[in-house]
């Protein structure tokens, strides 16, 4: 990487140093709050202050022994997994269709498909609340799964479409010319090649549902409270160290998701490199 904007003269070096210092401070600003609350979850005291009086796992124990927290974690997983599966099916089908569809209406359809990302959460939540209440879908798992599917499908479409764009459609044609039925060609030729893209889409979808709180706030009954929803009320009432334990658990899940995505991206780039 000699081909960069590396500084040459003394004044450029000074400017570069300033940039690095300022940028590093901003990076610290980005990480500091997350790093600051993690140790508090291991405190043996019940105040959220430093220095820690001692180390213990009592707040994790508290988390695991509290039916409220455990059921909220369970709900998050149930709703996350179900909406991921649903949005993967709908999103992948739509991406395959969009890749082949040529029409002047395509930008409009794309705008509709992607709009759940843009529309403010409160508007979606209020609309769904009005719409789902009369048909008995508020306070139900089904309602939340449907709502989260609508919110996460755009990410599936974006990710899978990007993968399909780099996919050589001639491979599908070759399969067809060799007598493969469209379904067989999809299963044996297209699917294995776009699988990493699908996996990234699924991770995005799961992360979207797992982090969503506004729709849950409006639509969930006491039975369907998710982990972020429980944290919301926890923060509202008073922040106990149990919340910091919940925060660490949530963050750990985020890190696992991020690491998996990164690994998929690396693998994909390596594969592309090999093809060239």
């Amino acid at each position, binding site marked *: 990487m000699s081909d960069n904007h590396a500084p040459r003269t003394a004044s450029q070096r000074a400017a570069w140093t300033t940039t690095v210092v300022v940028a590093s401070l901003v990076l610290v600003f980005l990480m500091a709050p997350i790093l600051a609350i993690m140790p508090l979850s291991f405190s043996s005291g019940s105040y959220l202050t430093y220095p820690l009086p001692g180390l213990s796992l009592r707040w994790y124990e508290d988390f695991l022994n509290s039916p409220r927290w455990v059921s909220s974690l369970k709900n998050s997983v149930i709703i996350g997994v179900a909406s991921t599966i649903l949005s993967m099916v709908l999103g992948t089908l739509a991406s395959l269709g969009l890749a082949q569809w040529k029409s002047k209406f395509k930008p409009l359809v794309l705008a509709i498909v992607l*709009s759940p990302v843009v529309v403010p959460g409160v508007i979606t939540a209020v609309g769904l609340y009005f719409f789902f209440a009369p048909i008995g879908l508020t306070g139900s798992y089904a309602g939340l799964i449907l709502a989260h599917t609508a919110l996460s499908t755009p990410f599936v479409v974006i990710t899978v479409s990007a993968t399909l764009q780099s996919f050589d459609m001639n491979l599908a044609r070759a399969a067809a010319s060799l007598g493969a039925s469209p379904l067989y060609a999809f299963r044996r030729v297209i699917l294995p090649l776009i699988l990493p893209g699908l996996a990234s889409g699924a991770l995005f979808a799961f992360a979207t549902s797992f982090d969503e709180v506004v729709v849950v706030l409006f639509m969930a009954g006491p039975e369907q409270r998710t982990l972020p929803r429980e944290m919301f009320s926890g923060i509202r009432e008073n922040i106990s160290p149990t919340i910091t334990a919940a925060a660490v658990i949530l963050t750990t899940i985020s890190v696992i998701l991020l690491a998996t995505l990164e690994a998929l991206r690396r693998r994909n780039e390596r594969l592309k490199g090999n093809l060239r």
Partner: protein
Amino acid sequence: MTAAFVAGADASSEVPLKRRLKRAERTRRLKALALILPLLLFLLFTFLGPIAGMLWRSVDDWEVRQVLPHTVAALADWDGKDVPGEPAFAALAGDIRTARDAGTVAIASKRLNYALNGFRTIMAGTARNLKTLPDPGTAKATLIAINPAWGERATWAAIKGASGPLTGFYLLGALDLTRNLDGAIVAAPEEQAIYRDVFGRTFTISFGVTALCLILGFPVAYMLATLPTGQSNLLMIFVLLPFWTSLLVRTCAWIVVLQSEGIVNDSLRWLGLIDEPLRLIYNRFGVYVAMTHVLLPFMILPLYSSMKSISPAYMRAAASLGASPVTAFLRVYLPQTVPGIGAGSLLVFILAIGYYITPALVGGAADQMISYFIAFYTTETVNWGLASALGAVLLLATLLLAVVYGKLVHGQQVTGGMKN
């Protein structure tokens, strides 16, 4: 003969081939549509429908129409200049008796109370005191005897104004406007006129957060785009990890860090810089800090990708032509980052104006943005018309900005394609 036969065969097969191709093309298009259709239908039910329903609620005026149907009919020809005549009073008396038996008085009086403060009391008192239907010809006198308000023009104008089927009442209200007795659009009374302030506050906070994100994000994006790939990939984790961390975790973290016994106040006290803890959270400062933290990655990532595509050759060329580093940066580098700045700023601004959770948790009462009021009128006071109208205004602002964003990003892709 053979030649004619061949020519004939050619002519006859050419048309079917064309047709066959067309048919194949059509089948392909239909197949593609069939793949997209499930998602579109799904979104119709779970997203577009609900939003259309919300927009409909912002203009729908059904309550009075449903509960007082005969009164609405009797007022259809009322010119609004004077208190209406006996037939309207008779219709109202009949409607109120029916509504009382059906238990629907409260539905109408809630709507009428929005139009005229105190109407709830008028309705409740009238429903209670109207023991029997008044004798023909005495309805007017009876009702005015129960409550003199029935002898006032404004009372009837409120019913007429709320008789639907469509109303601009909520949308006007969302913009601090109302109609006066003569139907002209005027400024709403001061105690109700709070939404322009709220929209102003929403835009001020969003603008401030966008500016902070740009100021803080620019050096980071520049550093990441300039450093060798290995190092920048490593530092990128500092941007991506917070990006992937739950919004609730980050908001909670800021409360822990900034509260009066929090880490920042403790450190400042330990250093002897302050005696009393500073108020850093549950106010505007806290909103700015937490929102900037949450939205900063949305600024850094588009800035980074636009800077990454700037060839260092431009800066070297500028330097070789005698430009000072400052001139080269301002005149050569900065202009090329403008698309990235535009995309990042619009994205942050669009996301910021819809924010609800963060201001609700770290802001004070005077720092709540428009989304808070939409939620408040939906779940707390159940004024769904006003909630929907405020939502409609926010949705319109968001969609307009999103269209600009789409044009900007799309245009970038087009020019990017041309460059290659």
